[in-house]
């Protein structure tokens, strides 16, 4: 048993609020980009075995479009923005004012648009988190992958490997008004950063 299993309810609520504020700002940014309303779910804080981390996006083999940023600094962790391929296509069509369709592989142009969208959304997630906590966050350059969810997300849980077989992540789903477009944020704080995070937010730590 590691400490993540001993988090109190109020600490879980604080982490939910982190997801709420981060994804809320990102959803607003997306709404502005698309000029359409964007809804979001109540964030979920999940503590699951490594194998189950991809369960909420369709299992380890499910192909997903992922933008990944590694966050360094006092609050380090991994931030993933995930879309199903169909949703990424819808996003593309909405942004580029295309009617329908788009088949097969994404073009270079589309890939760089996806990466930039990821960059903007992840940027708003992290900057709101930074404002909230007063912690300086230094994100890496974003990186894009279209691959199996398990292969992608496993990268974010490596730092949990030292201390147990479970990881904690904050999952927030957002939906475009017509619900044609769905994406999710997975924020996986590194295990050693929780005490900093709680301290910065003024709640009793671990």
């Amino acid at each position, binding site marked *: 048993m590691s400490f993540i299993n001993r988090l109190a309810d109020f600490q879980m609520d604080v982490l939910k609020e982190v997801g709420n504020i981060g994804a809320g700002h990102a959803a607003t940014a997306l709404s502005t980009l698309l000029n359409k309303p964007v809804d979001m779910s109540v964030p979920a804080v999940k503590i699951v075995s490594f194998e189950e981390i991809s369960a909420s996006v369709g299992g380890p083999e499910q192909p997903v479009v992922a933008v*990944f940023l590694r966050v360094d600094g006092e609050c380090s962790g991994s931030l993933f923005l995930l879309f199903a391929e169909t949703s990424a296509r819808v996003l593309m069509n909405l942004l580029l004012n295309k009617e329908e369709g788009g088949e097969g592989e994404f073009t270079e142009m589309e890939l760089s648009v996806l990466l930039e969208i990821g960059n903007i959304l992840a940027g708003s997630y992290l900057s709101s988190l930074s404002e909230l906590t007063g912690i300086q966050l230094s994100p*890496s350059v974003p990186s894009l992958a279209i691959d199996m969810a398990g292969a992608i997300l496993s990268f974010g849980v*490596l730092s949990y*490997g030292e201390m147990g077989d479970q990881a904690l992540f904050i999952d927030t789903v957002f939906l475009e008004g017509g619900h044609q477009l769905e994406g999710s944020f997975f924020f996986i704080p590194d295990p050693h950063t929780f005490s900093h995070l709680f301290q910065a937010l003024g709640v009793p730590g671990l």
Partner: protein
Amino acid sequence: MKVLIKVGMADLNVAGREESLRSTGLGSCVGVALFDPRVKVAGLAHVMLPQSSIAVGKEINKAKFADTAIPELIRLMQEKGAKAECMVGKLAGGSQMFTLGNREDTIRIGPRNVETCKAILQQYGIPITAEDTGGNYGRTIELDGSTGILHIRSVQHGSREI
């Protein structure tokens, strides 16, 4: 139809000739597939990190680290009648899913996993007959318990057998 045994992340298992072993969504993790063709005993470990020395706490999950998973896998296969000197090994996975400028250390975990697995197999004198490692893509692998053939599937690069 063979009985399919699932091997999760940081997990390992062994199979006989009527079974096959499957690990899904390997990224930087490495699938270590061992096979004793003489008695048709197969073993698969889904290794996440190279060294158990970084582990905190007393109880560790042996399957998680290359340096503890491989000896444990060999031990379990020996219980089923396999011999280490008859075993052959295959490796798959160990990719580098993302490239992030100069932050090489964590990023290089895939290649480091592969290097460590190779070094440990060498200590046991187990030859690596085939590998499909590295790259920047995920893999799903399935080890046939009767032939030792490792079937590899990926989203970007199709399927192959080694």
